[in-house]
Structures are given as structure tokens and as C-alpha cells.
């Protein structure tokens, strides 16, 4: 039982970080029909912003982290939209998808080339302590990661539902034609979505990188997991992406404990196939309309 709780908690912890990436992925899709296959690299990169700022430029870590988030918002948000999404979108969804795949490769190779091909140690925000409740060993980073990731998603959800700007963003995602005739600045709302995705990716990066090391290839698995989580959740709502992310984290953690590692790699894919067969609209998805 205590082992079960341990596995569940650490699964929820990584799952909540996957959910950050999956939520951003879903938001981009809703607001601009952008399927961002570079999303994994978007989670890999901000850790290197932190390292570049702290290790190379000598900023203290507490300052490097918020600066990295700002850089991510600007580069992975605004610049990504201006330089890649806007020009490619005119040519349709497929050229844009291919462009994001190319961008993912480019980002990966740039980190490998200009920073390092080797895994880099990455500072953790929290003490690596473990405390025990009823025999279950509970790690502080797990609890902290889960709290921060969930808090971020809840805050985002509140922003989207409780503020006029958030509701204008929802209107833009759900029915852009109507939003436009009501005078919503739809270009700005779409831009906000990209900025938010940049921030979500950066937060996910800062939380998850201490678990591994900072490495150029980190995005490969993360991107796939975010994509699967978004599909599992129905691809059209934040709640779905959240549930998808958590589910993937938990499933992955249990399979790591109970199956051999070859099977573990396959499990997200198996989950994806089962969901597509059984519930093509996703766990929480509805077959029509886009929801937040």
C-alpha cells in the first residue's frame, strides 16, 4: 500500500508537469490550429536559458529562472508566432506542422552544437528531502512540483473564465468569426495564447529538468507525452489535457515499477491507441465544439 501511494504521488508529480506542456499544446491548437511538434523542445530549451544565464553569465539562480521564463515568453511565444506560425499558416496546416517539426530539430541541434551534447546538472528549487507518512516515502520535490504545476493550471483556468480578457480568448478560440464581429482583437488574443504557451513550457522545464539532467534530447519524450496527453484528453479542453497529463504520468510510473523498461516505453502509445479506438473524441472530449 505504501509503495502504491509512493508511486501514485510521484506519477502525479511528473504527470502534472506533462499536463503543463499538454495544456499549452491544446491552447495553441484551439486558438490558431497550430499543432506544435516542437512542444517537447519548447520544454527542453528554457532549462538552457537558465543555465546560460546562471553558469555562463553568472546570474544567481533565483534571478536566472524568472529571466528564463521571460525569455521563453518572448522567444518561444512571440517570436515563434511572428517568424514561423504567421508566415506558414497562410500555406495551410501541413506546411505549418512540417515547419514546427523542423524547428524542433533545429532547436535540438543548436543546443547540442552551441551548448553541449552532454547532460548538464540543473539546480533544483527544492531540497531533495524525503519524509514518510504511514510508511510511504514522500519526496519534497514531488509535492512541490505537483503543487506548482497544478497551481499554474488552476490560475490559467481562472484567468480564462473569470477575466474579460480570458473570455475574449475563449471566444476567439471557439468562434473567431463571432469574436471578430463583436470587436474582439482576435490577433492579440491569439498572441496571448502563444505567450502563455511560452510561459507554461518554461515552468514545465524548470520543474522537470532537475529530475533528469538538462540535455538537448529531453524534448523527444516530452513532446510525445504532451501530444499523447492532449489527444487522450480530447484535444479540445484544458481539463482534458490536465487529466491526460496526470494519467500518463501515473501510468508511466507504475509501468516503470511493474514492467520491464521496453514495455514502459510502449505504454503511452498503447494508451493512445486504446483511447483512439474506444473514445476517439478523447476522455473528456466532446465530438463537437472546442471547450476550455
Amino acid at each position: 500500500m505504501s509503495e502504491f501511494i509512493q508511486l501514485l504521488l510521484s506519477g502525479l508529480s511528473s504527470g502534472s508537469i506533462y499536463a503543463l506542456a499538454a495544456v499549452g499544446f491544446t491552447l495553441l491548437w484551439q486558438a490558431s490550429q497550430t499543432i506544435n511538434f516542437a512542444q517537447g523542445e519548447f520544454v527542453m530549451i528554457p532549462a538552457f536559458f537558465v543555465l546560460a544565464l546562471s553558469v555562463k553569465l553568472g546570474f544567481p539562480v533565483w534571478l536566472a529562472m524568472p529571466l528564463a521564463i521571460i525569455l521563453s515568453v518572448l522567444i518561444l511565444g512571440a517570436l515563434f508566432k511572428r517568424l514561423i506560425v504567421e508566415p506558414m499558416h497562410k500555406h495551410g496546416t501541413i506546411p505549418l506542422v512540417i515547419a514546427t517539426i523542423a524547428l524542433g530539430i533545429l532547436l535540438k541541434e543548436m543546443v547540442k552544437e552551441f551548448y553541449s551534447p552532454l547532460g548538464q546538472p540543473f539546480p533544483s528549487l527544492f531540497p531533495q528531502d524525503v519524509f514518510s507518512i504511514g510508511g510511504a516515502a514522500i519526496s519534497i520535490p514531488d509535492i512541490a512540483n505537483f503543487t506548482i504545476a497544478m497551481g499554474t493550471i488552476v490560475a490559467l483556468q481562472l484567468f480564462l473564465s473569470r477575466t474579460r480578457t480570458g473570455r475574449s480568448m475563449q471566444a476567439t478560440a471557439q468562434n473567431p468569426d463571432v469574436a471578430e464581429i463583436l470587436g474582439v482583437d482576435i490577433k492579440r488574443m491569439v498572441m496571448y495564447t502563444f505567450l502563455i504557451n511560452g510561459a507554461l513550457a518554461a515552468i514545465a522545464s524548470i520543474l522537470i529538468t532537475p529530475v533528469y539532467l538538462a540535455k538537448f534530447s529531453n524534448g523527444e519524450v516530452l513532446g510525445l507525452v504532451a501530444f499523447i496527453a492532449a489527444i487522450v484528453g480530447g484535444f479540445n479542453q484544458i481539463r482534458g489535457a490536465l487529466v491526460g497529463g496526470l494519467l500518463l504520468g501515473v501510468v508511466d510510473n507504475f509501468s516503470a515499477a511493474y514492467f520491464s523498461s521496453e514495455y514502459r516505453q510502449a505504454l503511452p502509445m498503447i494508451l493512445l491507441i486504446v483511447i483512439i479506438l474506444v473514445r476517439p473524441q478523447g476522455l473528456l472530449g466532446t465530438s463537437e465544439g472546442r471547450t476550455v
Partner: protein
Amino acid sequence: MLELKNLFGGYGKITILNGTTFKIPEASITTVIGPNGAGKSTVFKAIFGLLNIHSGEILLNGENVVGLTPKQLINKGVTYVPQGRNVVPQLSVYHNLELGGITADDQSRVKARIEQVMDQFPMLRKFRDRKAIELSGGQQKQLEVARALLLDPKLILIDEPSIGLSPNLVAEVFRTLQALRDQGVTILMVEQNAKAALAMSDYGLVLELGQTRMHDRADVLLADPKVGHLFLGGHIEEDAPA
């Protein structure tokens, strides 16, 4: 109030409006009729800044508004209720209404106006917290009309409001429009239901192939046999291409 002068425009390279010209006075209801594909909806899109205008002028109180964005036109007192369903499906009725005032600087006035339109359409108050998608088609149309009234527009462009509405609700919407006209609002409406629409309008306008074919007092058009022919799906000019 509103004048279109020799307007040419369309989608991409396709030209739909071929020199559309007409003028409508303030505080009047004008119904635009014409066969499917005549360009009725396209005229509305043109006025509301949603169409590529190749040449010509759209004068709003004497000022050329070609090139203005929907938001700028809203600020000039124009509002547009397009054909079909136009709600934000997952937002509540209340928040759909709120979007009708999203461009206003004074949001406390918007709040007060929402209360007023909910008095006017009690159904909206009853369902204020329901998602718009959960309303029936007729209720959604009422929501759209109410939302369009939120900023006290001077000119309302309303495209086929009666589609999907029961005869009772159509009469209700027409009464609302007439009451607004009596308060000085100018209304330009497209209606498939031409007889009923002309009967409640001041003027009628027949559009065909992106051109104004007839423009007269509504009662005159109603009595015109050529218009009667049009109601049956024909064209004004017998030799006009189908």
C-alpha cells in the same frame, strides 16, 4: 444615414458586388430581398469591414468608412448580426451578452445594459448562466439580437433573423426592430421571408447579381407583380441568367 456608391468587391479574385448602389434614410427599416447567392450577405460583410472592396464608397453619415475594421465600425454605432448561428458556444448567456460590449471603455455601463436587455428578453435572464450552446436555435437568435443591442447601435445590419424561429418569435423580433426604429435606429435587414418582412418595413430593396434592381417603399414593392414573381423563386428580369 447609409449610402453605398457603385461598390465593387468580393472574395479573393471573385467579384460579387457589381456596382451596388443604394441609400437608406435614418430611423427606417429597409429589407433586402433577392434570390440565393445574389450577394445580400456579401453587402452586409462589405459594410461591416469584412470584405475586399475593389472600388466604390460606403458613406456612413457622409463619411467614407471603406477600410475601417469591425471594431472601428462598432465605435461608430454599427452592429451586425450575421446569418446562421453566431453565439460563443461554451460561454454562458451572460458572458455572450458581455461580449456585445467588449469594445466599450465603460464596463459598468455594459453591466447596466446587460440588465436592461435581460428585462427586454426575460428568457435570457432565466438562462443567464447556461452555456449558449444549450439554448434552442430560436433562443440563440434572441441572444444574438440582444447582444447586438448592447451598445445602443445607430445602425443594425441583421441577416435573416427569422431562420429557425417560430412565427411567434419572428413577430417578436420584428416588433423589437420596429420599436428600435421608432427610437431612431436605422435597420437594414435581409429576409428570406420576404412578404412578412416587407409588410413590417418602410423600404424594400431587391438585389440581384450584386446590383440593386429595385428600391422603393415597401408597400409599393409588395404590390408589384414582378416582386411577387421573385417570391416564387424567379428573377426580376425574365432573361437574367439563373
